[in-house]
């Protein structure tokens, strides 16, 4: 591995972290949009009140338009970062792709300007983007492509960010609240995907591989069956967190405010009445400032499920933290990460309660969304790390293969019959 290669890998990792952080910020902005109930403040898409979004005058960013338009611009920035990341993962092989797609965009921009004079700004943006892409292709680093897995993940991230933009646009253009649920769900998956890319490009991930490669006996790897059990629990808990986020997104995109206004009880009971007369009574006493849709019994049941699943998640994450600490020791990175995960979950429970006590204050509800995203990412990262450790352990246990055969980085050729994790 060359020094240049190491440096390039380090910068790639930093860029992946930056992209993931930007995606998290974007989720926060999206959370603000929904929490303020202003998702439909800009009724057209892909334009903004007829303007190309990059030319929409700042003087018109008033009220809910500010949040929605900021979300759109930030989404464009994340889209750009994701595109660069995906290209970077392809290394020098991205050059021809950039060149030709740049030329195609320039042609499209010129065609738009000529054939569609009313959309001059759109043509300029398209053509300008194409020119930048084309020009950049000549100075694009000639680094080696990353591993096949990373290249595929980069491509998946690119597809996801495009799909996410289209979903967000359709939610506005078709005026469909339901699309918002998919938009919110895909945002979480996209964030996890970027976190995975950041993890796989990290020196720590590569360093551990190298450590293992230098000799399995030096690593106090637990037995495969032990990690197997832990990994299954980690994965199941992470999936539970994901299900909880989908449930949360479903609740938020009902635009009905709080289905249950009190906590820890629910309408003063452990399980609230959900018959028609009771729901009518609840609606009579609800005084909403925003999100005025009346609540339904289904929404009450959804929130109760959200509370129950929260308890299950807290218990499951506590179990994960305890098991990893016991099996791997308190100082093991996975144990520490599991402890941090537990901290996030406890914070999330507190924020959930605060969301109710504050009558769904926008900033607190958004913090709840953000912590949810971080919780999912933490679970996913921990699952991936443990899965890798599990595979290492099994390989070490089942064969006497020397770990020198393990691929070190994308710069090292992959020996036949070995497993590559990045």
């Amino acid at each position: 591995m060359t020094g240049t290669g190491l440096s390039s890998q380090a910068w790639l990792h930093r860029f992946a972290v930056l992209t993931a952080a930007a995606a998290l910020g974007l989720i926060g902005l999206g959370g603000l949009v929904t929490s303020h109930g202003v998702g439909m403040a800009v009724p057209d898409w892909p334009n903004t009140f007829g303007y190309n979004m990059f030319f929409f005058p700042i003087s018109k960013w008033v009220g809910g338009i500010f949040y929605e338009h900021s979300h759109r611009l930030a989404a464009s920035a994340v889209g750009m970062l994701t595109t660069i990341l995906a290209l970077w993962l392809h290394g020098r092989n991205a050059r021809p792709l950039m060149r030709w797609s740049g030329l195609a965009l320039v042609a499209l921009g010129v065609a738009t300007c000529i054939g569609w004079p009313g959309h001059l700004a759109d043509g300029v943006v398209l053509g300008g983007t194409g020119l930048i892409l084309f020009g950049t292709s000549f100075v694009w680093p000639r680094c080696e492509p990353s591993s096949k897995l990373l290249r595929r993940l980069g491509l998946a991230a690119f597809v996801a960010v495009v799909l996410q933009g289209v979903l967000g646009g359709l939610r506005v253009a078709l005026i469909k609240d339901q699309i918002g649920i998919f938009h919110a769900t895909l945002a979480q998956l996209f964030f996890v995907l970027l976190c995975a890319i950041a993890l796989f490009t990290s020196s720590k991930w590569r360093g551990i591989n190298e450590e293992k490669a230098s000799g399995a006996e030096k690593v106090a790897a637990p037995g495969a069956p032990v990690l197997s059990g832990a990994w299954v629990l980690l994965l199941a808990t992470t999936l539970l967190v994901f299900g909880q986020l989908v449930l949360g997104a479903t609740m938020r995109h009902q635009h009905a405010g709080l289905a249950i206004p009190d906590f820890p009880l629910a309408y003063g009971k452990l399980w609230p009445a959900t018959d028609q007369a009771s729901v009518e009574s609840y609606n009579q006493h609800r005084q909403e400032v925003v999100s005025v849709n009346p609540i339904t019994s289904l929404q009450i049941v959804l929130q109760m499920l959200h509370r129950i699943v929260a308890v299950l998640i807290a218990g499951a994450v506590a179990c994960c933290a305890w098991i990893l600490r016991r099996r791997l020791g308190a100082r093991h990175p996975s144990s520490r990460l599991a402890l941090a995960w537990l901290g996030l979950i406890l914070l999330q429970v507190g924020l959930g309660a605060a969301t109710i006590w504050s009558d769904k204050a926008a900033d607190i509800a958004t913090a709840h969304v953000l912590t949810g995203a971080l919780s999912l990412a933490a679970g996913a990262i921990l699952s991936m790390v443990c899965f890798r450790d599990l595979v290492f352990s099994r390989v070490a246990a089942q064969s006497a293969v020397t770990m020198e055969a393990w691929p070190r980085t994308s710069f090292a050729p992959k020996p036949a019959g070995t497993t590559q994790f990045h």
Partner: protein
Amino acid sequence: MTRNSTLLIVAGLAGTLQLASAGDIIGTVTIKGAPPKEKDITPLKDDAICGKFHADMPTTHFYVVGPNSELADVIVSVQGITGKSTGDAAPPVILNQQGCMYSPGIFAVQTGQKIVVRNSDPTPHNVHSRPQVDGNKEENVLQMPGQADMTFSFSKPEPFLNFECNVHPWMFSWCSVFDHPYFAISGKDGTFKIANVPAGKYTVQAAHRKLGAVTKEVEVTEGAPAKVDFTLEVK
């Protein structure tokens, strides 16, 4: 000429008979029980532009209750009449956006009747109608300050059809759509009057957005108005 005159006389007589066999339904709506306290609309007061229009903290107006429990904003309508809309010829209803609030907050129209939406504010609003009944079109359009009035209308009856502004998410108005002209909205003194209802026995409904609906039977005869009072209960 003689034939035309005869037709006119017949039509006039028919019209007179129609009016003569119609009556009014009047009454008062009251509330039983204590409604919840209205909420401060803090985001409105905090808004840099809209907040200037309100010296005091604006509040929601879900329950407009008089000193003797009179209840305003209740939509009283005759049930069981369909296909009698005169909405095309009815005067338009003005829905004004002023001080970053919709006014009126509760109103009713006939199918086909024009709803003229006006922006009297120095800030943009988006007028977002959110019908739930098939056949009534959902729209979400921007109205800039000083922009010409916009016209909406709905072809199907629908209770409490929601108008909102997503630029200012505290702005709401609810419109009930009927396919006949026999409805009224209770005023601040709780009274209402449905005029020129054809004589006959009817079910009359009083519907409040929060309190739900109650019905009563009433017989309309020519001469004295039919009186029916309603009490809506906070459960």
